[in-house]
Protein backbone atom coordinates (compact mmCIF):
# COMPACT_ATOMS: atom_id res chain seq x y z
CA UNK A 1 0.00 0.00 0.00
CA UNK A 2 1.25 3.45 -0.96
CA UNK A 3 -0.24 5.92 1.48
CA UNK A 4 -0.06 9.18 -0.56
CA UNK A 5 -1.67 7.46 -3.54
CA UNK A 6 -4.38 6.09 -1.25
CA UNK A 7 -5.13 9.54 0.14
CA UNK A 8 -5.24 11.06 -3.35
CA UNK A 9 -7.62 8.34 -4.56
CA UNK A 10 -9.95 8.78 -1.59
CA UNK A 11 -10.02 12.57 -2.05
CA UNK A 12 -10.86 12.03 -5.71
CA UNK A 13 -13.58 9.56 -4.69
CA UNK A 14 -15.24 11.99 -2.29
CA UNK A 15 -15.02 14.89 -4.76
CA UNK A 16 -16.56 12.86 -7.58
CA UNK A 17 -19.34 11.56 -5.31
CA UNK A 18 -20.26 15.11 -4.27
CA UNK A 19 -20.01 16.36 -7.86
CA UNK A 20 -22.33 13.62 -9.10
CA UNK A 21 -24.94 14.79 -6.60
CA UNK A 22 -24.85 18.47 -7.52
CA UNK A 23 -24.66 18.32 -11.32
CA UNK A 24 -27.97 19.10 -13.01
CA UNK A 25 -27.08 17.44 -16.31
CA UNK A 26 -27.90 13.76 -15.81
CA UNK A 27 -25.54 12.56 -18.53
CA UNK A 28 -22.66 14.37 -16.82
CA UNK A 29 -23.78 12.88 -13.53
CA UNK A 30 -23.62 9.38 -15.01
CA UNK A 31 -20.15 10.05 -16.42
CA UNK A 32 -18.98 11.23 -13.00
CA UNK A 33 -20.44 8.10 -11.43
CA UNK A 34 -18.42 6.11 -13.96
CA UNK A 35 -15.22 7.77 -12.78
CA UNK A 36 -16.34 7.15 -9.20
CA UNK A 37 -16.59 3.39 -9.76
CA UNK A 38 -13.29 3.42 -11.62
CA UNK A 39 -11.53 5.11 -8.70
CA UNK A 40 -13.19 2.57 -6.42
CA UNK A 41 -11.73 -0.22 -8.58
CA UNK A 42 -8.27 1.39 -8.25
CA UNK A 43 -8.68 1.45 -4.47
CA UNK A 44 -9.63 -2.24 -4.41
CA UNK A 45 -6.53 -3.12 -6.45
CA UNK A 46 -4.51 -1.01 -4.02
CA UNK A 47 -5.87 -3.20 -1.23
CA UNK A 48 -4.65 -6.32 -3.11
CA UNK A 49 -8.21 -7.42 -3.86
CA UNK A 50 -7.63 -7.91 -7.57
CA UNK A 51 -10.77 -9.91 -8.22
CA UNK A 52 -13.03 -7.37 -6.55
CA UNK A 53 -11.33 -4.54 -8.43
CA UNK A 54 -11.76 -6.39 -11.69
CA UNK A 55 -15.46 -6.93 -11.01
CA UNK A 56 -15.91 -3.30 -10.06
CA UNK A 57 -14.19 -2.14 -13.25
CA UNK A 58 -16.14 -4.51 -15.51
CA UNK A 59 -19.58 -4.24 -13.94
CA UNK A 60 -19.50 -0.83 -12.25
CA UNK A 61 -17.55 1.28 -14.71
CA UNK A 62 -18.48 -0.73 -17.81
CA UNK A 63 -21.86 -2.35 -17.78
CA UNK A 64 -23.85 -0.30 -15.30
CA UNK A 65 -22.71 3.01 -16.84
CA UNK A 66 -23.85 1.76 -20.23
CA UNK A 67 -27.18 0.65 -18.73
CA UNK A 68 -27.71 4.02 -17.05
CA UNK A 69 -26.98 5.89 -20.29
CA UNK A 70 -29.39 3.52 -22.04
CA UNK A 71 -32.14 4.29 -19.52
CA UNK A 72 -31.45 8.00 -20.02
CA UNK A 73 -32.76 7.68 -23.59
CA UNK A 74 -36.22 7.27 -22.07
CA UNK A 75 -35.87 10.15 -19.58
CA UNK A 76 -35.28 13.90 -19.63
CA UNK A 77 -31.66 14.90 -19.80
CA UNK A 78 -31.81 17.77 -17.30
CA UNK A 79 -32.96 17.60 -13.74
CA UNK A 80 -35.43 20.49 -13.37
CA UNK A 81 -36.85 19.64 -9.97
CA UNK A 82 -36.39 22.03 -7.07
CA UNK A 83 -34.59 20.93 -3.94
CA UNK A 84 -36.42 21.49 -0.67
CA UNK A 85 -34.27 22.90 2.08
CA UNK A 86 -35.76 20.77 4.86
CA UNK A 87 -35.04 17.60 2.92
CA UNK A 88 -31.42 18.64 2.33
CA UNK A 89 -30.92 19.41 6.02
CA UNK A 90 -32.43 16.07 7.11
CA UNK A 91 -30.33 14.22 4.54
CA UNK A 92 -27.10 15.92 5.57
CA UNK A 93 -27.84 15.26 9.24
CA UNK A 94 -28.46 11.55 8.55
CA UNK A 95 -25.25 11.24 6.57
CA UNK A 96 -23.19 12.90 9.29
CA UNK A 97 -24.79 10.68 11.94
CA UNK A 98 -24.00 7.59 9.89
CA UNK A 99 -20.40 8.69 9.37
CA UNK A 100 -20.08 9.26 13.12
CA UNK A 101 -21.37 5.75 13.78
CA UNK A 102 -18.82 4.36 11.33
CA UNK A 103 -15.99 6.16 13.09
CA UNK A 104 -17.28 4.85 16.41
CA UNK A 105 -17.28 1.27 15.11
CA UNK A 106 -13.94 1.50 13.30
CA UNK A 107 -12.06 1.35 16.59
CA UNK A 108 -13.12 -2.25 17.18
CA UNK A 109 -12.14 -3.43 13.71
CA UNK A 110 -8.94 -5.46 13.29
CA UNK A 111 -6.07 -3.79 11.45
CA UNK A 112 -6.37 -3.86 7.68
CA UNK A 113 -5.16 -7.13 6.17
CA UNK A 114 -4.41 -8.61 9.58
CA UNK A 115 -3.66 -12.29 9.02
CA UNK A 116 -4.32 -13.14 12.64
CA UNK A 117 -7.65 -11.38 13.06
CA UNK A 118 -10.51 -13.55 14.37
CA UNK A 119 -12.29 -13.54 11.03
CA UNK A 120 -9.24 -14.86 9.20
CA UNK A 121 -7.61 -17.11 11.75
CA UNK A 122 -9.39 -18.15 14.92
CA UNK A 123 -11.65 -16.89 17.61
CA UNK A 124 -11.24 -17.37 21.34
CA UNK A 125 -14.16 -19.21 22.84
CA UNK A 126 -13.18 -19.60 26.48
CA UNK A 127 -10.29 -20.01 28.89
CA UNK A 128 -9.74 -22.41 31.78
CA UNK A 129 -7.24 -22.56 34.62
CA UNK A 130 -4.48 -25.05 33.98
CA UNK A 131 -4.91 -27.58 36.79
CA UNK A 132 -2.93 -30.42 35.31
CA UNK A 133 -4.80 -30.18 32.04
CA UNK A 134 -1.73 -29.54 29.91
CA UNK A 135 -0.14 -32.83 31.01
CA UNK A 136 -3.16 -34.65 29.63
CA UNK A 137 -2.79 -32.71 26.39
CA UNK A 138 0.87 -33.75 26.23
CA UNK A 139 -0.18 -37.40 26.03
CA UNK A 140 -2.74 -36.50 23.33
CA UNK A 141 -5.87 -36.76 25.44
CA UNK A 142 -8.50 -34.05 25.49
CA UNK A 143 -9.37 -33.29 29.14
CA UNK A 144 -12.96 -33.89 30.13
CA UNK A 145 -13.42 -30.31 31.39
CA UNK A 146 -12.62 -28.76 28.03
CA UNK A 147 -14.72 -31.36 26.23
CA UNK A 148 -17.84 -30.74 28.32
CA UNK A 149 -17.33 -26.97 28.15
CA UNK A 150 -17.23 -27.11 24.34
CA UNK A 151 -20.32 -29.31 24.37
CA UNK A 152 -22.19 -26.93 26.65
CA UNK A 153 -21.34 -23.95 24.45
CA UNK A 154 -23.40 -25.50 21.69
CA UNK A 155 -20.68 -26.89 19.47
CA UNK A 156 -22.25 -30.35 19.48
CA UNK A 157 -23.98 -32.80 17.18
CA UNK A 158 -27.40 -31.47 18.04
CA UNK A 159 -26.48 -28.18 16.36
CA UNK A 160 -24.86 -29.94 13.40
CA UNK A 161 -21.31 -29.37 14.56
CA UNK A 162 -18.85 -32.25 14.29
CA UNK A 163 -18.73 -34.25 17.48
CA UNK A 164 -15.67 -34.62 19.68
CA UNK A 165 -15.98 -38.40 19.76
CA UNK A 166 -13.11 -39.01 17.35
CA UNK A 167 -10.27 -36.59 17.61
CA UNK A 168 -6.51 -36.25 17.38
CA UNK A 169 -4.22 -33.82 19.15
CA UNK A 170 -1.16 -32.53 17.35
CA UNK A 171 1.46 -30.12 18.64
CA UNK A 172 1.61 -27.08 16.37
CA UNK A 173 5.26 -26.07 16.10
CA UNK A 174 4.75 -22.60 14.59
CA UNK A 175 2.00 -21.37 16.87
CA UNK A 176 3.22 -23.19 19.99
CA UNK A 177 -0.08 -24.73 20.91
CA UNK A 178 -2.14 -27.87 20.42
CA UNK A 179 -4.32 -28.38 17.36
CA UNK A 180 -7.41 -30.49 17.97
CA UNK A 181 -8.27 -32.37 14.79
CA UNK A 182 -11.79 -33.67 14.28
CA UNK A 183 -13.02 -36.45 12.01
CA UNK A 184 -14.86 -34.99 9.04
CA UNK A 185 -18.14 -36.40 7.85
CA UNK A 186 -17.48 -35.88 4.14
CA UNK A 187 -17.63 -38.52 1.45
CA UNK A 188 -14.69 -37.44 -0.64
CA UNK A 189 -12.43 -35.75 1.86
CA UNK A 190 -12.65 -38.06 4.81
CA UNK A 191 -9.93 -37.61 7.35
CA UNK A 192 -9.12 -35.19 10.10
CA UNK A 193 -9.56 -31.44 9.97
CA UNK A 194 -8.19 -29.03 12.51
CA UNK A 195 -10.95 -27.27 14.35
CA UNK A 196 -9.87 -26.21 17.85
CA UNK A 197 -6.62 -24.72 19.05
CA UNK A 198 -5.43 -24.72 22.63
CA UNK A 199 -2.66 -22.46 23.83
CA UNK A 200 -0.99 -22.30 27.20
CA UNK A 201 -0.32 -18.83 28.54
CA UNK A 202 1.15 -18.97 32.04
CA UNK A 203 -1.44 -20.63 34.27
CA UNK A 204 -4.28 -20.30 31.82
CA UNK A 205 -5.29 -22.49 28.86
CA UNK A 206 -6.99 -20.55 26.08
CA UNK A 207 -9.26 -22.48 23.73
CA UNK A 208 -9.73 -21.11 20.23
CA UNK A 209 -11.87 -22.21 17.31
CA UNK A 210 -10.45 -21.95 13.80
CA UNK A 211 -12.38 -19.81 11.33
CA UNK A 212 -13.56 -21.07 7.97
CA UNK A 213 -10.94 -19.21 5.83
CA UNK A 214 -8.19 -21.35 7.39
CA UNK A 215 -9.29 -24.42 5.44
CA UNK A 216 -9.85 -22.23 2.39
CA UNK A 217 -6.31 -20.88 2.57
CA UNK A 218 -4.53 -24.10 3.34
CA UNK A 219 -6.46 -26.74 1.45
CA UNK A 220 -8.21 -25.14 -1.52
CA UNK A 221 -5.46 -25.72 -4.05
CA UNK A 222 -5.00 -29.32 -3.00
CA UNK A 223 -8.72 -30.09 -2.86
CA UNK A 224 -9.76 -28.40 -6.09
CA UNK A 225 -6.66 -28.28 -8.22
CA UNK A 226 -7.21 -24.59 -9.00
CA UNK A 227 -4.48 -22.04 -8.21
CA UNK A 228 -6.82 -19.08 -7.91
CA UNK A 229 -8.28 -19.21 -4.43
CA UNK A 230 -11.06 -16.74 -5.13
CA UNK A 231 -12.50 -18.58 -8.11
CA UNK A 232 -12.24 -21.90 -6.33
CA UNK A 233 -13.94 -20.58 -3.23
CA UNK A 234 -16.74 -18.82 -5.07
CA UNK A 235 -17.59 -21.75 -7.30
CA UNK A 236 -17.05 -24.53 -4.82
CA UNK A 237 -17.15 -23.75 -1.11
CA UNK A 238 -19.76 -21.09 -1.74
CA UNK A 239 -21.41 -22.79 -4.71
CA UNK A 240 -24.96 -22.29 -3.43
CA UNK A 241 -24.32 -18.57 -3.06
CA UNK A 242 -23.01 -18.22 -6.61
CA UNK A 243 -25.94 -20.22 -7.99
CA UNK A 244 -28.24 -17.81 -6.18
CA UNK A 245 -26.41 -14.80 -7.65
CA UNK A 246 -26.78 -16.21 -11.15
CA UNK A 247 -30.48 -16.71 -10.53
CA UNK A 248 -30.70 -13.07 -9.38
CA UNK A 249 -29.14 -11.79 -12.63
CA UNK A 250 -31.43 -14.04 -14.66
CA UNK A 251 -34.48 -12.82 -12.76
CA UNK A 252 -33.49 -9.17 -13.22
CA UNK A 253 -33.17 -9.61 -16.98
CA UNK A 254 -36.49 -11.47 -17.20
CA UNK A 255 -38.36 -8.86 -15.14
CA UNK A 256 -36.96 -5.93 -17.15
CA UNK A 257 -38.03 -7.74 -20.32
CA UNK A 258 -41.50 -8.30 -18.88
CA UNK A 259 -41.82 -4.61 -17.96
CA UNK A 260 -40.44 -3.02 -21.11
CA UNK A 261 -41.35 -5.39 -23.93
CA UNK A 262 -45.03 -4.72 -24.33
CA UNK A 263 -46.29 -6.66 -27.31
CA UNK A 264 -42.85 -7.31 -28.65
CA UNK A 265 -43.33 -10.96 -29.42
CA UNK A 266 -46.90 -10.88 -30.72
Amino acid at each position, binding site marked *: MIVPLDIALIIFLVVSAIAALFVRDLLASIAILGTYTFVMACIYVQMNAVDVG*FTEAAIGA*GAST*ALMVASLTKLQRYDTGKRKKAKVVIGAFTVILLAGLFFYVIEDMPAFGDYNSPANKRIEIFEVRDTGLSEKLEVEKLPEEIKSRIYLLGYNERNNFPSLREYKIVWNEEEEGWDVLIKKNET*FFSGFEKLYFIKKEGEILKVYRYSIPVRWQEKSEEEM*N*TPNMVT*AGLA*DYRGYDTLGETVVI*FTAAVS*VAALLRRGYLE
Partner: protein
Amino acid sequence: MSDVNVVIKTTVRTMLPFIQLYGFYVMTGTEGAGGGFQGGVILAASFILYGITFGAEKGRQAAPESWNTAFKSFGLWIYAGVGMLTILYSLGRAEFLNYSATFLSLFVPHTVARGILIADVIEIGIGMTVAASFISLFFDLVWRSDEDGRS
Protein backbone atom coordinates in the same frame (compact mmCIF):
# COMPACT_ATOMS: atom_id res chain seq x y z
CA MET B 1 -22.86 8.49 -47.64
CA SER B 2 -21.02 11.17 -45.80
CA ASP B 3 -19.80 9.04 -42.98
CA VAL B 4 -18.14 11.07 -40.25
CA ASN B 5 -18.01 8.06 -37.93
CA VAL B 6 -15.81 5.97 -40.15
CA VAL B 7 -12.96 6.02 -37.64
CA ILE B 8 -15.18 4.85 -34.81
CA LYS B 9 -16.80 2.16 -36.93
CA THR B 10 -13.51 0.77 -38.21
CA THR B 11 -11.99 0.80 -34.72
CA VAL B 12 -14.93 -1.00 -33.20
CA ARG B 13 -15.04 -3.55 -35.99
CA THR B 14 -11.34 -4.29 -35.47
CA MET B 15 -11.55 -4.38 -31.68
CA LEU B 16 -14.60 -6.64 -31.31
CA PRO B 17 -12.95 -10.06 -31.79
CA PHE B 18 -10.20 -9.16 -29.36
CA ILE B 19 -12.65 -8.00 -26.73
CA GLN B 20 -14.62 -11.21 -27.11
CA LEU B 21 -11.49 -13.34 -26.94
CA TYR B 22 -10.49 -11.52 -23.76
CA GLY B 23 -13.96 -12.16 -22.37
CA PHE B 24 -13.62 -15.89 -22.94
CA TYR B 25 -10.11 -15.85 -21.49
CA VAL B 26 -11.30 -14.15 -18.32
CA MET B 27 -14.27 -16.47 -18.09
CA THR B 28 -12.50 -19.80 -18.19
CA GLY B 29 -9.10 -19.24 -16.60
CA THR B 30 -8.33 -20.37 -13.10
CA GLU B 31 -4.78 -19.11 -12.92
CA GLY B 32 -5.52 -15.39 -13.11
CA ALA B 33 -8.10 -13.06 -11.71
CA GLY B 34 -11.65 -13.10 -12.96
CA GLY B 35 -14.43 -15.55 -13.44
CA GLY B 36 -17.80 -16.07 -15.01
CA PHE B 37 -19.31 -12.75 -13.97
CA GLN B 38 -16.47 -10.57 -15.21
CA GLY B 39 -15.97 -12.50 -18.43
CA GLY B 40 -19.68 -12.47 -19.17
CA VAL B 41 -19.85 -8.72 -18.65
CA ILE B 42 -16.86 -8.15 -20.96
CA LEU B 43 -18.53 -10.35 -23.58
CA ALA B 44 -21.74 -8.37 -23.21
CA ALA B 45 -19.78 -5.11 -23.43
CA SER B 46 -18.56 -6.06 -26.89
CA PHE B 47 -22.16 -6.40 -28.12
CA ILE B 48 -23.18 -3.21 -26.33
CA LEU B 49 -20.31 -1.39 -28.06
CA TYR B 50 -21.52 -2.77 -31.37
CA GLY B 51 -25.05 -1.61 -30.60
CA ILE B 52 -23.88 1.89 -29.65
CA THR B 53 -21.79 2.25 -32.79
CA PHE B 54 -24.02 0.76 -35.45
CA GLY B 55 -27.45 1.43 -33.98
CA ALA B 56 -29.87 -0.68 -32.00
CA GLU B 57 -31.44 -2.43 -35.01
CA LYS B 58 -28.14 -3.78 -36.26
CA GLY B 59 -27.13 -4.63 -32.72
CA ARG B 60 -30.26 -6.67 -32.25
CA GLN B 61 -29.51 -8.48 -35.48
CA ALA B 62 -26.04 -9.36 -34.20
CA ALA B 63 -27.40 -10.60 -30.87
CA PRO B 64 -30.94 -11.78 -31.63
CA GLU B 65 -33.40 -11.78 -28.77
CA SER B 66 -34.29 -15.44 -29.25
CA TRP B 67 -30.63 -16.35 -28.78
CA ASN B 68 -30.37 -14.19 -25.69
CA THR B 69 -33.39 -15.86 -24.13
CA ALA B 70 -32.05 -19.30 -24.96
CA PHE B 71 -28.55 -18.55 -23.65
CA LYS B 72 -29.57 -16.99 -20.40
CA SER B 73 -31.70 -19.99 -19.52
CA PHE B 74 -29.12 -22.45 -20.81
CA GLY B 75 -26.29 -21.02 -18.69
CA LEU B 76 -28.34 -21.34 -15.53
CA TRP B 77 -29.38 -24.81 -16.63
CA ILE B 78 -25.72 -25.85 -16.97
CA TYR B 79 -24.98 -24.72 -13.44
CA ALA B 80 -28.01 -26.34 -11.86
CA GLY B 81 -27.58 -29.33 -14.17
CA VAL B 82 -24.15 -30.07 -12.72
CA GLY B 83 -25.85 -30.02 -9.33
CA MET B 84 -28.45 -32.51 -10.55
CA LEU B 85 -25.69 -34.66 -12.05
CA THR B 86 -23.94 -34.83 -8.70
CA ILE B 87 -27.18 -35.94 -7.04
CA LEU B 88 -27.77 -38.61 -9.69
CA TYR B 89 -24.24 -39.92 -9.53
CA SER B 90 -24.06 -39.96 -5.77
CA LEU B 91 -27.30 -41.99 -5.80
CA GLY B 92 -29.32 -39.74 -3.59
CA ARG B 93 -26.71 -39.05 -0.94
CA ALA B 94 -27.64 -35.39 -1.36
CA GLU B 95 -24.28 -34.17 -2.61
CA PHE B 96 -25.79 -31.18 -4.41
CA LEU B 97 -23.00 -29.12 -6.02
CA ASN B 98 -20.30 -31.35 -4.55
CA TYR B 99 -18.32 -31.49 -7.76
CA SER B 100 -16.35 -34.57 -6.80
CA ALA B 101 -19.46 -36.66 -7.31
CA THR B 102 -19.80 -36.71 -11.08
CA PHE B 103 -18.98 -39.28 -13.72
CA LEU B 104 -15.75 -37.35 -14.42
CA SER B 105 -14.30 -38.84 -11.24
CA LEU B 106 -14.27 -42.22 -12.98
CA PHE B 107 -11.60 -41.07 -15.41
CA VAL B 108 -9.44 -38.64 -13.44
CA PRO B 109 -8.77 -38.10 -9.72
CA HIS B 110 -11.73 -36.39 -8.15
CA THR B 111 -9.78 -33.27 -7.21
CA VAL B 112 -8.81 -32.79 -10.85
CA ALA B 113 -12.40 -33.37 -11.91
CA ARG B 114 -13.43 -30.72 -9.43
CA GLY B 115 -11.00 -28.22 -10.99
CA ILE B 116 -12.19 -29.00 -14.51
CA LEU B 117 -15.84 -28.57 -13.54
CA ILE B 118 -15.21 -25.28 -11.76
CA ALA B 119 -13.01 -23.78 -14.45
CA ASP B 120 -14.63 -24.91 -17.67
CA VAL B 121 -18.25 -25.83 -16.99
CA ILE B 122 -19.61 -23.77 -14.12
CA GLU B 123 -17.87 -20.56 -15.13
CA ILE B 124 -19.01 -20.85 -18.74
CA GLY B 125 -22.56 -21.38 -17.52
CA ILE B 126 -22.39 -18.26 -15.33
CA GLY B 127 -20.77 -16.29 -18.15
CA MET B 128 -23.48 -17.28 -20.63
CA THR B 129 -26.27 -16.19 -18.30
CA VAL B 130 -24.58 -12.90 -17.38
CA ALA B 131 -23.64 -11.99 -20.96
CA ALA B 132 -27.08 -12.74 -22.41
CA SER B 133 -28.80 -10.96 -19.49
CA PHE B 134 -26.77 -7.77 -19.87
CA ILE B 135 -27.18 -7.71 -23.67
CA SER B 136 -30.95 -8.11 -23.43
CA LEU B 137 -31.12 -5.53 -20.59
CA PHE B 138 -29.27 -2.96 -22.70
CA PHE B 139 -31.29 -3.49 -25.86
CA ASP B 140 -34.56 -3.50 -23.94
CA LEU B 141 -33.64 -0.13 -22.47
CA VAL B 142 -32.55 1.60 -25.69
CA TRP B 143 -35.30 0.14 -27.85
CA ARG B 144 -37.78 2.81 -29.02
CA SER B 145 -41.31 1.57 -29.45
CA ASP B 146 -43.49 3.15 -32.11
CA GLU B 147 -46.90 4.74 -31.55
CA ASP B 148 -49.11 1.70 -31.08
CA GLY B 149 -46.90 0.39 -28.32
CA ARG B 150 -45.14 -2.25 -30.33
CA SER B 151 -41.45 -2.50 -29.72
